[in-house]
């Protein structure tokens, strides 16, 4: 394990040096559309106090932590730089964590705009705080009326429909995955980027990140690397001892002999799927993020109000901004 750490620090030393030269203290990032509404709150989603606790006070604490950690002049530069540099550095983990959380929260807030789809001022007012009884409330079905605040951009609309079947299905999947996060986390809409001769953007996915994870550098990568490290070391040890080597080979033979083995079926285990995912050269381009952390909704919606909060978030999504983030869609290869 120590060896792997040393390798990690060596490879990023040059980057560290370059960042150190342009050291600057971090401040709370500016979001133009949100900063205008600091005193009034985000219409239909956050009260002024709710916005304060969902963004300003939170961002301030992340920034304070960042500055505390970077006293030695290590971490200046943009949030993206810090994230990519310290992503695999266990020693400077808190730098990555705070930068990542700040980046994600900012990204999620940038997707939002005051709600325009509601007609009366009563609707715009925040819903009454949910109680324990609301946990048992059944779903409200309005199959006759279409869902409101759907994307208007044709390119985005078509892409979503191609990837998820329909906008309703997409909404259900996105909100359900956000709803299912128990701790801190974000639900993302991402475009898969396959690195071939030219970058290929074909499919959209809904993806969750937990705690301070990033769509491209999930917190699990560290654990996966650790697992891989232990696994290879185990294999090496096994092959060192001739007797153990023989036993190992025999075991493998036996395994291959089992015609009905679970491993031999076409069904992939989660670990196999993960290793395949890591092996392929692909990345995710984040398009939309929903903040599913309790910090985002506790003040205005209460402990049991996550469902109402998520519904309001859907109403607040600024689809024009989302559409502007889209990469050029690749044409599907016809075989």
């Amino acid at each position, binding site marked *: 394990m120590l060896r792997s750490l040393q390798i990690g620090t060596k490879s990023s030393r040059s980057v560290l040096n370059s960042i150190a030269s342009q050291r600057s203290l971090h401040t709370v990032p500016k979001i133009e559309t949100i900063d205008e509404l600091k005193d009034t709150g985000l219409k239909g989603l956050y009260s002024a106090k709710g916005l304060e606790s969902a963004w300003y006070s939170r961002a301030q604490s992340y920034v304070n932590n960042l500055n505390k950690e970077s006293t030695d002049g290590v971490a200046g530069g943009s949030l993206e730089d810090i994230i990519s540099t310290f992503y695999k550095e266990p020693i400077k983990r808190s730098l990555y964590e705070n930068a990542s959380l700040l980046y994600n929260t900012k990204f999620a807030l940038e997707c939002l705009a005051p709600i325009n789809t509601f007609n009366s001022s009563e609707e715009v007012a925040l819903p009454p705080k949910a109680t324990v009884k609301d946990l048992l409330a059944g779903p409200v*079905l309005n199959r006759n009326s279409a869902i409101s605040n759907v994307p208007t951009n044709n390119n985005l609309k078509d892409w979503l429909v191609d990837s998820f079947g329909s906008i309703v299905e997409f909404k259900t999947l996105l909100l359900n995955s956000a709803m299912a996060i128990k701790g801190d986390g974000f639900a993302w809409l991402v475009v898969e980027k396959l690195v071939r001769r030219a970058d290929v953007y074909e499919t959209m996915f809904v993806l969750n990140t937990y705690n301070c994870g990033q769509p491209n550098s999930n917190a*699990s990568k560290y654990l996966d690397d650790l697992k891989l490290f232990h696994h290879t070391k185990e294999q090496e040890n096994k092959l060192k001892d001739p007797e153990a080597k023989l036993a190992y080979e025999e075991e493998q033979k036996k395994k291959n002999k089992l015609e009905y083995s*679970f491993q031999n079926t076409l069904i992939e285990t989660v670990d196999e799927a993960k290793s395949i995912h890591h092996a392929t050269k692909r990345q995710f381009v984040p398009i939309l993020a929903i903040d599913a952390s309790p910090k985002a909704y506790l003040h205005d919606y209460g402990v049991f109000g996550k469902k109402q909060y998520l519904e309001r978030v859907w109403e607040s999504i600024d689809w024009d901004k989302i559409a502007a983030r889209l990469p050029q869609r690749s044409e599907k290869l016809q075989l």
Partner: protein
Amino acid sequence: MKFQTKALDVLETTSHFLKSGAVESTPAWYTVVGANPPFKNQIKVPTFNYQKVAKEQESFLDTDKESKAKKSTKRFQYNANTGFYKTRITKGNSVETDVYKPIKLKFLQDELRNLFYYQHPWELADGKILVEGNSVVDYEKLDWSSIIQLNKKLDGESVVQRTLYILKDNKKQVKQNPSIEKISLEKAYNQARFEYYQIKMAREAEVQVAQEEATFSGAVFKPSSIEVGFEKESQVLSKWKEDALAETKRIEALRSGNSAGPEAGESEGALDDVFDDIPEAQEESK
């Protein structure tokens, strides 16, 4: 053989024995059987199916001749020309025995349940607790204003009960305010069904995300019981295949009538194989 009822007299016999002293202490079941004596009359007395007959008699209340004629049954034949009923028993309309048959129980719940499980056969694969006890929940007594229940698992039964609730609730509302649209059975069923789908989807996401979230925090899950079972089963199957092949070879050899021993050339080769496995023999040959 005559109908045997002697065993049913166990209480009387034992009392007699106790009195006479043939049995010294009272058996443990004595008071219980005394409190709940066995039913001795084994002859089933047919009960007249009043409901069926009353339903047939409905045609008496009709004023319209045509509808009367339509509703006339074998037992009550209406003659449109004379305006009379023929109720006398003749060869043609002898009293049907089904009047004494028990009434067939018909419930809307059963039809809904059958429909749901016909449309969603895999829901039958969902596990269900069949143990009865003090905690048995009477589904009809629960509040079905929401399909989610605290002490009832979400399954096909929930859809059935929710459908009934929607119908009942709608009926009540229409009574209070006639301008409200009346909900048909189909619409109520569909509403309950779609609510069911919504919650199923949410719960599926919940399970997946919970596992993922735990994994990202370092949790390692053991192979599931299905995987373990699959692995065990495959071991048995592979062993069975090996044995079966060997057995088939043996049977085929017997059938071909080649029951003579191995030929000279073969036996030498076979012996070589045996010697290879014995270390002492290898040393000697060197």
